[in-house]
Structure formats: C-alpha cells, structure tokens
C-alpha cells in the first residue's frame, strides 16, 4: 500500500531532539543558500559572471516588484530582506523536490524504512513558524504605525457609540448611530477573528499545495509508473513556484496594509 504520512519522520536523535528528514534538508538548503549569496556578495565584480548575473536579476526584479507594491522606497528597504528571504528559501526548498532519484534514498530504522528526503514545505511545523513570524511582524508594524491605542481601537471599535452619546449630550437623538455602533463593534470582532484566519489560511495554503502535489504524484506513480505521472509533475512544478511567490507576496501585502494609515484617520489627525 502507499506510504503517506502527515508528519515528518525522525531519522535519528541528537541528545533527545529528533532530527527529522525535513529538518535535515532545511539545514542543508539554508547553508547552500547562505554560502551562495554571501559568496557572490563578497566577490562582486563589475563584469558579472553567470552566478552573479542570475542573482542580480533575481534581487533587482524582486526589489522593483516589492517597491511597486509598497509604493515607497523607505518601506521597501525595511520589508524587502524579510520577504525576499522567505521567497528564496521556499523556492529553493520546493525546487529541490524535483531532483530525480531522491525517493530511492532510504534509511532503515526501527519503525521501518524511512525516506531520507521529504519535501521540506510539507513539514507543517516549519511553515507554521514562518507564518507566525510574518503575522507577528504585521502586528508590530500595526502597533508602531497606529500606536497601541489605535491598534486596540481597530478591534474594539466604539466610535459609533461615542458619536451617539455625543449627539445625546448636544440634545439630538439619532437612533441610526447606535446601529452604526453595533456594526462597528461587530466588524472589530470580525477583524480580530480575521487575524487568526490569516495564520491558518496562509500556512495551510503552502502546506496543502505542496503536500497535495507530493501525494498526487505518489498516487499516480502507484497506479501507472510511466508517462502518466508526468503532467502531474509539471503541475507540481507550477504550484511549487507559484506558492513560493504567493506566500511571500501575501506576507508583503499584509505588512503593507498594516503600515498604511487610513484616510479617515488622517482626517482625524488633521482636525485634532
């Protein structure tokens, strides 16, 4: 029968800490990326070689794209390193899946035969941590931009009630404002739930896509070993690239949205 497991398997234990197959590859890929990028950055030449050329095109293109999303050079300089690192790491991890022959490498352990390689992004723990980092950045940026009270005011919105009671003190009774107050309160609570929904949808999107493409290739290989799995593998290649892009861009868009001051807030500041 097919061997499909949700959680990565432990290869060996290092002082009680399980070293899983995805963790091993995470470390290997990180080291390769760091050596490559630092090596190129140390030996920058005026006439670039092939490696330097590729990396320059990648970095410059991404920088221009991030700039077009944030709309200001100052923000881009701060956000770009984080988002670009996420993109390059996820892309490298996803593309390593497509080296042929790696599923043949296995290790024999007490629990049975364990594959030495597993798609890194099908480890939910890693993706969860990356998402939490992104969402924490969003909250910190929001607090820094709106101030702690403005940040809380987004979730506990009492503006409608405030206007209602202000009008009562002035001797005017406007019942539609209390409806507005309840709506604001409800939308604030929805925004609070939305922050958690962001974590779930962002992390499960990447995990689900990569895991599903792995499983579908395995199932197709199981049913028909030749030719038939090829189109599914191509589809997997497409999702591998697109999902790396999507994860980074959505993190970027969330951070940019949190860093923007809304227009009515600007109007309020102008009147104060």
């Amino acid at each position, binding site marked *: 029968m097919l061997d*499909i*497991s*949700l959680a990565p398997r432990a290869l060996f234990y290092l002082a009680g800490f399980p070293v899983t197959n995805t963790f091993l590859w995470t470390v290997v890929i990180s080291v390769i990326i760091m050596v490559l990028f630092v090596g190129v950055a140390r030996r920058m030449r005026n006439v670039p070689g092939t490696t330097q050329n590729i990396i320059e095109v990648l970095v410059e293109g991404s920088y221009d*794209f991030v700039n*077009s999303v944030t709309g200001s050079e100052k923000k881009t300089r701060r956000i770009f390193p984080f988002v670009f690192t996420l993109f390059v790491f996820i892309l490298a991890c996803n593309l390593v899946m497509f080296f042929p022959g790696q599923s043949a490498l296995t290790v024999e352990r007490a629990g049975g035969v364990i594959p030495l390689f597993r798609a890194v992004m099908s480890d939910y723990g890693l993706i969860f941590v990356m998402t939490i980092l992104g969402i924490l950045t969003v909250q910190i940026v929001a607090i820094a931009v709106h101030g702690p009270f403005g940040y809380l005011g987004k979730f506990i919105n009492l503006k409608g009630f405030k206007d209602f009671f202000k009008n009562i003190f002035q001797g005017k009774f406007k019942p539609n404002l209390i409806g507005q107050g309840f709506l604001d309160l409800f939308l604030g609570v929805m925004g609070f739930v939305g922050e958690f929904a962001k974590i779930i*949808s962002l992390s*499960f*999107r990447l995990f*689900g*896509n990569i*895991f*599903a493409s792995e499983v579908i290739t395995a199932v197709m290989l199981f049913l028909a070993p030749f030719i038939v799995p090829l189109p599914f593998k191509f589809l997997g290649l497409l999702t591998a690239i*697109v*999902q790396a*892009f*999507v994860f980074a*861009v*959505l993190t970027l*868009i969330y951070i940019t949205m949190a860093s923007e001051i809304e227009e009515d807030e600007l109007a309020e500041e102008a009147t104060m």
Partner: protein
Amino acid sequence: MEVEAVKLLAAGLAAGLGAIGPGIGEGLVAGHALAAIGRNPEASGKIMPFMFATMAVAESTAIYALVVALLILFAF
C-alpha cells in the same frame, strides 16, 4: 456502513465539494485578468502577479476542504 468506509466517503466528499467554489472563482479571476491583458497588453507585467495572489486567496477554501479531508483520513 462501517466506520472506515464512511471515513473514505467523507474525505472524498469534503475534498470534491470544497473544490467546486474555488474552481469557479479561479476561473473568473483568470478570465478577467486575461480580458484585462487583452485590452492593455503592456499592463500584463503588473496584472499577472496580482492575478496569482488573488487566485491563491480564492484557493484557500479548497485548501480548507483538503485539510479537513486529510484530518478525516489521518487524524481520526
């Protein structure tokens, strides 16, 4: 029916029914993006990244359905 059979049925139904909405949604996104590129081919570089980003958002309900199916299959 046995529990195992119901589990398999439930997982298949969850993934299959959950894929209907996002399928329609992604088709709409791609269709409108292509229409926009047809009207203004120079803007394709600006439209394509956002098309992929919005498609990913439309996809999230399918991913929820997939997660539910996986939970039914492996976690319970």
